[in-house]
């Protein structure tokens, strides 16, 4: 049972706590987790996403990896483009597979464990400040058991020239594995960075990956952040990302959920200054009995900010999708523009989509819109293409690519767009 495995793992970590210097926070987080337990469907936020199957499995918080990760990654996206790479295998930083090509040594691209000692001041100033553990069982779990993750610090006026890959590989060759990646990204004033967060799995056992990301964007900075889920097989994935934006910042986020048994993405934006732009784009295409749950929240705490959200789903077989988009416009946040759309195409009669926009507006001078659609591939475009001699299967792919194009066009890395097209091709 997962709960017992977690208890065992925590007891083991506790013994090493003196060394890691995390004891108080871990202890606090663990107690919070113990108090809350795993979320159940009685919790409104988890109404459609049942973790029961996960709770009944046994997992090990292991670092052991016996699979050939190097071979596995050979044709992966990160090896096709020039980039900085931070690779973690079962939560452990892998120096052999990682590569930092950034030459400016005032920019830190490293792992958390190292940053905690080398860059203690920055670390302590930001770590745990954005992702809440209170009343959040899975964030508490991550904080209690976290082993390692990425630490990225971009100082004022600096731009990281090449994208940074944060790659997590869950290797379940030997046992069911439980990973708790934790990433901290600090982008200082007028700095810019491009992050690509990727999740893979290897091996035939089950995987539970529970991620927490904290991204701090200081004034006038620009952050491009893509999150790509490609863990296959029996894989459970929970991701909590808190993006904290100061004034005049631009943050563009894309979540691509291409695989996984159960994937829950919690994407939270907090707009703490004026003139912020936040873009949230998502594409999911679950198959089989898979479930994808996107919970997003945008907090407009200050006036004159824009947020625009578009999530699209291509639903196959008996898959289930959940979309819950919350927009909170705080009392002071006048002249807010907040837009939200969720569009789904059902390719099967047995697929299900639960979609729920949730707008809570406390300011009176704002523009907020939301909309959700669930439908089949339109017959008219299909007939048009076929009437020009294009066979049905080719026409369907063209139309699904066109549907996905609204998301694909936001991705600034052509190789990633190609990957997405290949995935669509593969799925149909």
């Amino acid at each position, binding site marked *: 049972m997962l709960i017992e495995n977690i208890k065992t793992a925590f007891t083991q970590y506790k013994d090493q706590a003196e060394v890691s210097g995390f004891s108080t926070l871990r202890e606090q987080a663990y107690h919070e987790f113990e108090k809350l337990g795993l979320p159940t469907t009685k919790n409104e936020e988890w109404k459609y996403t049942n973790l029961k199957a996960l709770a009944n499995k046994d997992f090990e918080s292991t670092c052991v990896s016996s699979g050939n990760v190097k071979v596995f990654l050979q044709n992966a996206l990160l090896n096709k483009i020039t980039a900085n790479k931070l690779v973690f295998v079962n939560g452990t930083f892998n120096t052999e597979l990682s590569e930092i090509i950034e030459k400016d040594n005032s920019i830190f691209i490293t792992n958390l464990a190292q940053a905690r000692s080398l860059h203690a001041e920055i670390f302590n100033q930001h770590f745990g400040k954005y992702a809440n553990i209170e009343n959040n069982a899975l964030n508490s779990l991550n904080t209690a058991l976290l082993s390692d993750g990425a630490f990225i610090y971009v100082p004022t006026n600096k731009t990281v020239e090449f994208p940074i890959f944060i790659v997590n590989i869950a290797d379940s060759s030997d046992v069911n594995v439980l990973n708790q990646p934790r990433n901290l990204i600090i982008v200082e004033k007028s700095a810019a960075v491009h992050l690509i967060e990727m999740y893979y799995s290897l091996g035939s056992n089950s995987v539970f990956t529970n991620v927490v990301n904290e991204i701090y964007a200081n004034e006038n900075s620009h952050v491009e952040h893509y999150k790509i889920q490609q863990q296959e097989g029996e894989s459970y994935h929970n991701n909590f990302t808190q993006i904290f934006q100061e004034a005049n910042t631009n943050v563009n986020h894309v979540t691509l959920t291409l695989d996984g048994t159960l994937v829950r993405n919690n994407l939270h934006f907090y707009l703490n200054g004026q003139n912020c732009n936040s873009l949230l784009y998502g594409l999911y295409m679950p198959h089989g009995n898979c479930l994808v749950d996107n919970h997003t929240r945008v907090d407009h705490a200050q006036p004159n900010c824009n947020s625009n959200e578009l999530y699209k789903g291509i639903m196959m077989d008996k898959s289930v999708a959940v979309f819950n988009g919350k927009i909170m416009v705080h009392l002071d946040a006048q002249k807010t523009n907040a837009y939200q759309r969720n569009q789904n195409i059902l390719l099967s009669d047995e697929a299900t989509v639960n979609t729920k926009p949730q707008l809570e507006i406390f300011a009176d001078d704002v523009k907020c819109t939301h909309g959700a659609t669930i439908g089949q591939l339109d017959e008219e475009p299909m007939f*048009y293409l076929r*009437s*020009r*001699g*294009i066979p049905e299967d080719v026409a369907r792919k063209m139309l699904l*690519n066109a549907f996905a194009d609204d998301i694909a066009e936001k991705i600034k890395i052509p190789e990633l767009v190609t990957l997405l097209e290949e995935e669509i091709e593969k799925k149909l």
Partner: protein
Amino acid sequence: MLSIKDLRAEIEGKKILNGLSLEVKAGEVHAIMGPNGAGKSTLSSVLAGRAEYEVTGGSVTYEGKNLLEMSPEDRAREGLFLAFQYPIEIPGVSTTNFLKTAVNEKRKYLGLDPMEATDFLKMMREKMDYVEMDKSLISRSLNEGFSGGEKKRNEVFQMAMLEPKLCIMDETDSGLDIDALRLVSNGVNKLRNKDNAFLVITHYQRLLDYIVPDFVHVLYKGRIVKSGDKELAKELEVKGYDWIKQEVEANS
């Protein structure tokens, strides 16, 4: 080329075509005219293979084959082309990519290799001139944001690209101003030759001043009730459809 015999079709239980017969030979242009609700668009839909229409009787033979048994894509690849009355917009599908796919799918069907990219672009440029299509339009998504006239020109441009044997033009003139009508008609006239045939479906005679037909048929209550040459179209323009209706009612 096309032989329609006693064709009967309905949609949602409503009988629309009630024994329509028509013979079209290569090199001919046939105009199909008729009042609203006569079954003009149903005829084009049935020929192109729209699934919503159910054929309840009769036969359609195209180039010796049973057209009604073929999928819409096979009909197209065998050389049938429908210029839509209302060409739809398909955001996210580029006009170039769409045409390249269509041209190469047809070539594949005919056992030919895909076209070289440079040859394809050259062909596009040539065929665009047929209807004086603006170059910027083909880099956009299919018909997205096109004006009514641009959409119809795009239909004729596609027709030129796919080089069909039998072209069905479904009220191509509807909603066109005189300049667009002239451009579209010029395009069609350039494509006319002894090996292909046109079925021009229209409510108004105006289009037939530009695309001059060899035969004019009047469709009423799902059947061809009168046939003649281009003079018949002119007569209809002057007298309207009422006299035809009266003639039919009197005979029945």
